[in-house]
């Protein structure tokens, strides 16, 4: 009787089969294909569940070899966000064009406010770029 499975195992089998055990177990007892499938499932589960003891040094070594941040990874050099660059460029060009037209119409010198506005737009674009780089590196 040493080959008998324990009651806990039998309970698990019964529950899995909704206690409709006779027919499935009879089939399992005679069907080679189902037995092979069950053996495959068991082997796969064991393969997935296998574990080895990992030394802390290996974990440290793995972590040491990870890039410190994305900027250190190949091909991750800083790049301008093309949308920000395009928008900032359009705003700067429009602002300067308006200023030049206004100066030409009035016959006076170029007003200072468009230059300041263009500088502000450029600064906002630069800040946006820096934030993008920082977010990538976090």
């Amino acid at each position, binding site marked *: 009787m040493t080959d008998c499975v324990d009651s806990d195992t039998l309970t698990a089998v019964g529950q899995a089969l909704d206690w409709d055990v006779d027919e499935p177990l009879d089939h399992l007892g005679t069907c080679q294909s189902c037995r092979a499938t069950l053996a495959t499932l068991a*082997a*796969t589960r064991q393969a997935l*569940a296998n574990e080895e003891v*990992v030394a802390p040094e290996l974990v440290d070594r793995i972590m040491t*070899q*990870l890039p410190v941040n994305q900027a250190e990874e190949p091909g991750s050099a800083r790049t301008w966000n093309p949308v920000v660059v395009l928008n900032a460029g359009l705003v700067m060009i429009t602002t300067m064009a308006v200023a030049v037209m206004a100066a030409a119409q009035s016959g006076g010198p170029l007003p200072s406010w468009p230059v300041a506005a263009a500088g502000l737009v450029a600064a906002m674009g630069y800040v946006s770029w820096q934030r993008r780089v920082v977010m990538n590196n976090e």
Partner: protein
Amino acid sequence: MTTLHPDDLPSFYAGDHAIFRRLVEAHTPRLIAFVRPFADGEYDAEDLVQETWQLVYRKRETFRGTGTLLGWIYSIARNVCLGRRRRVAARSAASPDPELHMGVGAASAELVVEDAEFRRDLNAAIMQLPDRERDVVILRLLEQRSTLDTAAALGCAEGTVKAALHHAVGKLRTSIKEWAP
């Protein structure tokens, strides 16, 4: 857990080393056991694992977050093992086919999981499963989740889970049939 909590995804995508340390500690015991059959020795298995984690880090933004993280890591480990076999084959020219399937020797009388070649066959077959099937196998067999839970975790129908498991088992059976009784 083989899945990544949605709250951890932003940190994962950002490459936060704290979360990566947690992942390395959690998954390396299984990962190193899984790639062991493809290694030549202890240090080689560690090399495979290290290379896998480096790729996981570099490719982290390609993880969709919908499947199991472990399954995704195994798909990367497969490429690492495959690359290694290609390099070995190129050096020795002894094995013209670098695929991970095995031309194994004598058939065993029964499934013996401890056997290195059998493990290599089976692990290779698991790694080569399509993403969805591998996720289902991991959730249903390793985590022993119900069909309903698995479907919820993967965002699909229960029928999809059943079909994926059926297809996966068919492929795994084929890959190890030389070892079957």
